[in-house]
């Protein structure tokens, strides 16, 4: 039984990729397995944990819940790509400095959620930060230092 593949053009981190992928391949499958962008993590594959978060046209998306072909025509940004943006690298730096990273498996998902938040709201409140992170699970930190990191960034005029 051969699976049906479809052609699909994806723009990821500013680069265009012409791909043949299974019709039911998720964006997460393609990022990790075809494009070697392994920073995006598979934590649950059910859309619960947020470790696979990416930006699609600036919106936070769980890449395990989006079929790859659905992202055609959109600009996809992963944790690798977000390092290139000012907001993304600021988010990464504040998490590092606040000691908000432990095992790190959830971190790319948190980076993307915070990047999405700070891209449209540079000075979010603590409640806004917590709401923005409510779709991300972390098992190590108890969330306190992640929220503190974001609050530090929110207090800065960048």
């Amino acid at each position, binding site marked *: *039984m051969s*699976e049906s593949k479809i052609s699909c053009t994806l723009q990821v981190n500013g680069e265009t990729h012409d791909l043949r992928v*299974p019709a039911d391949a998720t964006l997460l499958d393609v990022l*990790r397995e075809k494009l*070697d*962008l*392994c*920073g*995006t*993590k*598979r*934590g*649950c*594959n*059910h859309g*619960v*944990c947020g*470790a696979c978060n990416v930006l699609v046209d600036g919106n936070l998306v769980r890449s395990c819940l989006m079929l790859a072909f659905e992202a055609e025509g959109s600009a996809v940004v*992963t*944790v*690798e790509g977000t*390092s290139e943006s000012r907001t993304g690298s600021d988010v*990464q*730096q504040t*998490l*590092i*400095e*606040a*000691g908000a*990273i*432990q*095992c*790190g*498996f*959830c*971190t*790319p998902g948190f*980076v993307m959620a915070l990047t999405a938040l700070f891209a449209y709201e540079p000075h979010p409140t*603590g409640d806004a930060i*917590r*709401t923005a*992170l*409510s*779709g*991300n*699970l*972390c*098992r*190590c*930190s*108890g*969330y*306190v*230092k*992640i*929220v503190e990191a974001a609050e530090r960034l929110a207090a800065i005029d960048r």
Partner: protein
Amino acid sequence: MTMATEGSPPRLDAGDKATGRARYVDDIHLPGMLHAAVHTSTHAHARIIAYRLDAARAIAGVKAIVTGADITGVRAGGIVKDETMLARGTVRYVGEPVAAVAAVDLRTAQRAAAAIEVDYAPLPAVFTPDAALARDAPVLHEEFANYVKTVDGGGQGNVVFESAITEGDVEQAFGNCAAIVEGTYETQAQHHVYLETNGCVADVDSAGRITLHATCQSVHHIQQRVAEELAEPMAKIRVIATRVGGGFGGKHASNIHSIAAWLARATRRPVKLVLSRLQDFEIQRTRHPARIWMRTGAAANGTIVARDVRITLDGGAYADESPAVLAFALLMSRGPYRIANVRAHGKVVYTNKLRAGSFRGFGNPQATFAGESQIDELATKLCMDPCELRLRNAMRPGDTAFGGQPVRSCALRDALERARAAQRAAPVLPPRDGCRRGVGFAAMSHISGLMGTAASVQLRADGSIALATGCVDIGQGADTAMVQMCAGLLGVTLDRVSYAQQDSDVSPYNWKTAGSRSTYMTGRAVAAATIEMRQKMLDQAARMMECAASDLELRPGGTIGLVGVPRTVSFKDVALHSLFRAGGPIAATHGFVFDGPGFDPKRASIHRLAFANLGVYTFGAHCVEVDVDTATGKVDVRRAWCAHDVGRAINRVACEGQIQGGFVQGMGYALTEAMHWNEDGWLTTTTLADYKIPGVLDAPAEIHPIVIEDPEPSHPLGAKGIGEPSLVGAAPAIANAIHDATGARLRTLPMTPERVLDMLP
């Protein structure tokens, strides 16, 4: 220059983790790599009659299929060797691996695994210890008497292990008590839910030597287990640790690595086996469900004089770490108190469910939930403040732990007082409509010394230092702490010390990243090796400078100088001289097995305890505030103050992270997390949507870590462990706060809204 052990430098691995560069096991892709999928049991207890593999074999791209009939049959495990990598002859829980497939891609492997059919003859199954201990209960392991056991636990029938510890005369002491409380406490199966599921990649060379890349808590343990199950010498198995996306005890013992290794050996190709979340829930391990009956008695002045404890642990289908978990639960059942007369008896029982094993706290959360709930119940009966009752009975330096070991450093009273003072000093949170507010305390003890470990340091040509240990960083920050200790003792910056990824070919032995032991045990090895190498560097410099080593001193930044004189030689000079002129490479290795004072047979009668020795006790106290919604029963933990004696904080921010993270994992245990099996033994909580771990909106916004530093004399830098205690105290502190708020005494975990509502007076 500040010492590398002062302050909290950011973690060495944080940059890679923040940018997605860190490599976890599922990020490994090797040329020609196959993917494995596991076919699991659909019966809780059944004999395997036949395997039907033709349909799976016929699928294009399938390269190998292995079933329990193909494997050696050597049973592996911890103290009781009762398990095979795939079920042989009998399945004992739904989800037990029965067969495995290697195929060209994951989809094909999964399709083939699903196409395997197995004929079973069902057997009666037991899902609770009560059912397993019933007179006519089916016996899970009929060959139990013939299994290899490293310690005889007196098990028979479905009893895996039975232990007891007694100090003093409990019966007589209860006769003299003014107040006695008694109750039964029940706790549930909790899953670790490390964000990265378990897995490995096995590779094989032309000589048949297998290299495993594994997310794990010990390369040495996996090496030993796989060698045993594949009947290969350990020299033919190499294990390399990847970055680990959380462990919490769940990656402490091995059970899936041999499957990948077997398939790699059979196909002569690399094989990746990374569990789906569903299979990780179904085939890994849980915290032991426990039933604890406990009775505690005190004199009228509040001095606790007697405690009697009976613990029954549900071990699931295989023993795994059960005997050791039972032993530790018993040791912790006295609590961190001076109680002269204590009797603790426990057993762990086989049932037809997923194995229970190691999980952060290791039996202590169950024992402490019972014990600390009971302290509050006793305080109510004595009309005393619960925190005062704890202070009155708290252990002090020089006291002995249960089992008779002397305790040298103990800051428990300080922890209780500081947690209480911080809560009292905090501004009062505004009340919420429909909610009652309560405050609860819990005190706790844990250990950080056990088993063996080692470290090696070498001086490189430019004066850099190469540090290696077998301690895998599972997220807690061990890499950074080890480098800080080494760099601090040599007066160099962190970037002058390299730290080796764990590799069983070269890493010094380490038992496991477990038992809150890394900073204490491996840290001691790092410190001792570094101090020994430092002396060799001074000796070498003395020969170069033609003086006595005792006239030399280490100066910050990597130089050695003559005391009172500006003349120096650099580490580089010393290294080059040793490498190319005289003396030879400068290096040191230090290894030891826990060497603290052992159990005292004159104080305590110890019957079949699975541990030879452990110690270096840590102490802590939690104070929590909860709001209980009296209409819905929902409990909201508003704030927590968690005071912990860490000996000395090597990295304060990392200590705080352990305390906060442990508290929230303990809060999940207290309130929402529970694995459920249906009447046929099928696990029904197999996704993160069904099994609820706390999210950011569930966790309190304020978790105040109070880091107490009371240096441990046996560690050159004074450090003790902090990995587990913060989880241990969470559930009883929350239970006590619920009682304070509402008068409801919850003795069953998790304390769901339904249970709270049922108990509201």
